[in-house]
């Protein structure tokens, strides 16, 4: 039952529009710093573009997808009209206003600080205020997801919360708490300096706050993808979820172990004690648990679909899968990219190995593979799956959809594999210019050119995606029927309270944040003499 289709469509359209712009900037960045582009003579333009690309891809685009998808889940899974529609629109418009507010200073070159803010570099205050508005808009969504679940529980006391909604609310709580780190950094540290109230800033403390956000935000980006794995894919390919409880356990584990591990982003920072780095590193390793649980459960669910379709044998069932179904393709591509990205992640999370790839192009290659690849390809799949239910029109061109997914997969591999490689060779990230004429790095030119070609393949795929959705707005009308989520092999009649509510896991998440971040933050905040003069962008 999707009632507020306009609301959901508005979120998706805005998400994909800004995605299209940022994708173009990304392809341009790749091109301009590769040997096939001619040097701009002005690195500032590159950093302007990079700030816009990172801010949109990191903050605006995935947040809007999670919100739009979240509203759809709330209505379709709970079979209940969304409560608080006006608030939802208010949240949407806050994001619109915040994005415009942030983008103007970026475009004027007043906020080329990159999406990680990089204090003591300080840009125009409106950039940060814009980001804050985006986050506040998304917090409205968090509150609405919680309220809608509560309303449903009142009407259905004791009933198991549908898996999609359980996961969706878990994701929203994760985000609410995750965003607090960057919010503290912005409100307590950066904005006062950007507004001219203070002239010094504790950059070390700011980095610790940011790491609080930086890791778990990745799991917030991942949530829609995981929800699609569990609750859309099995239905779309004619199978069942192998285990409903396994799914719930994965989602609550993400709450507990995704949050308090962000200091693996500060391995190279002197202001954080080695003991805390070790604890964060160990907890990071635990993320393997929900990840492997998911890989196992989804493979089992897919096997069920294959066997229902007559597949046989140890591996023979694989050929019985509906490979022409876009959802099947997207899942397979996503898993392959998740596998490679996960393997790379093992290197990043190891204190010692990280030193060899720290701040190199390996890192950008890694997160593009996981985020731009494994995660975003499922965003496409979600949009394709929901579109007929949102527009009441059919997406006719399945072949085009398949081509688009293939191109994204191929493009992402072509882009990111050489990207990792030059990182291993030591090429630093966030550089506007490389002199490939120099014999020392001339051999890397080929890899960088390959990446740039991959970037254009991705751009072509992204344009196709938007065209497919736009054409879907004018296709012949159909009755898409009610929107359904996948059912489990054993659909639960009752669920233990711990797996039907979030309180225990949210409490653990907050508790672990206090143990893992409390002392480092207090220590830095209370030490004197740790601040440095701010460096204002464009000021002299």
């Amino acid at each position, binding site marked *: 039952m999707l009632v507020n289709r306009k609301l959901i469509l508005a979120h998706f359209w805005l998400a994909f529009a800004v995605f299209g712009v940022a994708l173009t900037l990304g392809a341009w960045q790749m091109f301009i710093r590769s040997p096939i582009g001619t040097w701009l*003579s002005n*690195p500032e333009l590159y950093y302007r573009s990079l700030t816009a690309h990172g801010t949109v891809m990191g903050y605006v685009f995935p947040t809007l997808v999670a919100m739009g998808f979240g509203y759809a889940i709330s209505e379709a899974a709970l079979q209940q009209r969304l409560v608080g529609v006006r608030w939802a629109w208010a949240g949407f418009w806050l994001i619109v206003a915040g994005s415009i507010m942030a983008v103007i200073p970026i475009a004027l070159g007043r906020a080329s600080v990159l999406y990680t803010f990089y204090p003591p570099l300080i840009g125009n205050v409106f950039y940060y205020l814009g980001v804050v508005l985006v986050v506040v808009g998304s917090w409205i969504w968090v509150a609405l997801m919680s309220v809608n679940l509560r309303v449903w529980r009142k009407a259905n006391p004791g009933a198991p919360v549908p898996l999609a909604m359980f996961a969706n609310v878990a994701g929203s709580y994760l985000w609410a708490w995750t965003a607090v780190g960057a919010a503290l950094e912005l409100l307590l540290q950066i904005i006062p300096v950007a507004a001219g109230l203070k002239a010094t800033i504790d950059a070390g403390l700011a980095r610790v706050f940011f790491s609080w956000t930086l890791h778990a935000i990745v799991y917030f980006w991942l949530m829609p993808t995981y929800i699609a794995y569990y609750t859309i894919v099995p239905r779309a390919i004619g199978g069942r979820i192998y285990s409903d409880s396994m799914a719930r356990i994965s989602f609550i584990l993400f709450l507990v172990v995704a949050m308090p591990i962000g200091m693996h982003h500060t391995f190279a920072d002197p202001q954080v004690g080695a003991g805390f780095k070790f604890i964060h590193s160990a907890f990071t390793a635990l993320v393997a648990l929900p990840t492997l649980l998911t890989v196992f459960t989804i493979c089992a669910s897919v096997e069920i679909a294959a066997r229902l379709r007559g597949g046989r044998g140890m591996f023979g069932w694989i050929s019985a899968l509906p490979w022409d179904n876009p959802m099947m393709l997207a899942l397979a591509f996503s898993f392959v990219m998740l596998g490679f990205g996960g393997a790379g992640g093992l290197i990043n999370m190891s204190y010692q190995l990280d030193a060899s790839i720290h701040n190199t192009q390996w890192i950008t290659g890694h997160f593009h593979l996981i985020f731009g690849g494994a995660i975003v390809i499922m965003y496409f799949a979600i949009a394709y799956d929901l579109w007929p239910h949102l527009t009441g029109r059919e997406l006719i061109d399945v072949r085009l959809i398949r081509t688009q997914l293939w191109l994204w997969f191929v493009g992402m591999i072509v882009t990111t594999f050489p990207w990792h490689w030059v990182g291993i060779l030591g090429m630093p990230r966030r550089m506007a210019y490389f002199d490939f004429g120099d014999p020392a790095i001339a051999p890397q030119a080929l890899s960088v050119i390959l990446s740039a070609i991959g970037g254009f393949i991705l751009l072509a795929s992204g344009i196709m995606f938007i065209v497919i959705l736009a054409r879907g707005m004018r296709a012949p009308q159909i009755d898409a029927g009610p929107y359904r989520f996948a059912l489990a092999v054993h659909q639960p009649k009752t669920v233990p309270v711990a797996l039907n509510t979030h309180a*225990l896991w949210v409490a*653990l998440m907050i508790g672990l944040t206090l143990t893992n971040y409390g002392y480092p933050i207090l220590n830095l905040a209370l030490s004197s003499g740790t601040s440095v003069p701010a460096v204002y962008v464009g000021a002299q």
Partner: protein
Amino acid sequence: MSTRDLFTLRNTHFRIGVGITAAILIVTAIAGFIVLPFAQPWVQFANVWDAICSAAGVTQRAPDVTAPQQAKRLSEVVLTSNTLSRPSQEAIGRGATLAQRCAICHGPTGVSRADSPNLAGQYAAVIYKQLHDFRSGARSNAVMSPFAVNLTDQEIADLSNYYAYLPRLPAYHPTPQLPKPNIVIYGAPMRGIAPCGACHGSLDNKTGSPWLEGQSEAYMKAQLQAFATSERRNDISQQMRNIARAMTAQEIEAAAAYYASQPPDVVKAVD
């Protein structure tokens, strides 16, 4: 079941969830704060508490070491992007009076006829820093140093504000504009040289770096050579010495000739 039944030891999920999490935390804490610090044979800890504090990152006072004596004075000026912002009209007026003694070399309009630097419209922080350095001896020059030794802090600030306030005028004897040499637009990344304009104003300006357009070619060449030989050493953290040392003689020629040939109005405005 309600949440009242959730947070109690009778609930298995609660026992297991909290128990396992706490156990992992304790084990990793013991490993991270006690076992691993002692596993580093090259670090000595007085006792367990000492190891824990070190692993927790407790800020510790470094033992008192006296900084090595420098043979020559280094610059002690602290510059931030707020140094000297928004001067008053009176400050500029006082600066104008003081500047009369500078005019003999730097020109009555702040544009030099000799090979001294043009000061009209130079960034205030630049003049401020150089005058302080001349006064302290971090930079020395037979002509300039005697003028600077007697200046007060206030006079230095006023002079800086006055010259920054003057309009940027074209240099005397301008030569035809030369094309940008590579060292200016690209720098030389493999030798650690950033493009000149990344600090000196045409792309971006870093506090304390002067703009160079229209300055005397001979003067710029001499300064680059002085940085390269460490004869001049008042640049903070050797920023300019590191670059000048890595430049070839031809690059120094080319950069000086290029900047001398440029009109000063291409310089990024100060806000």
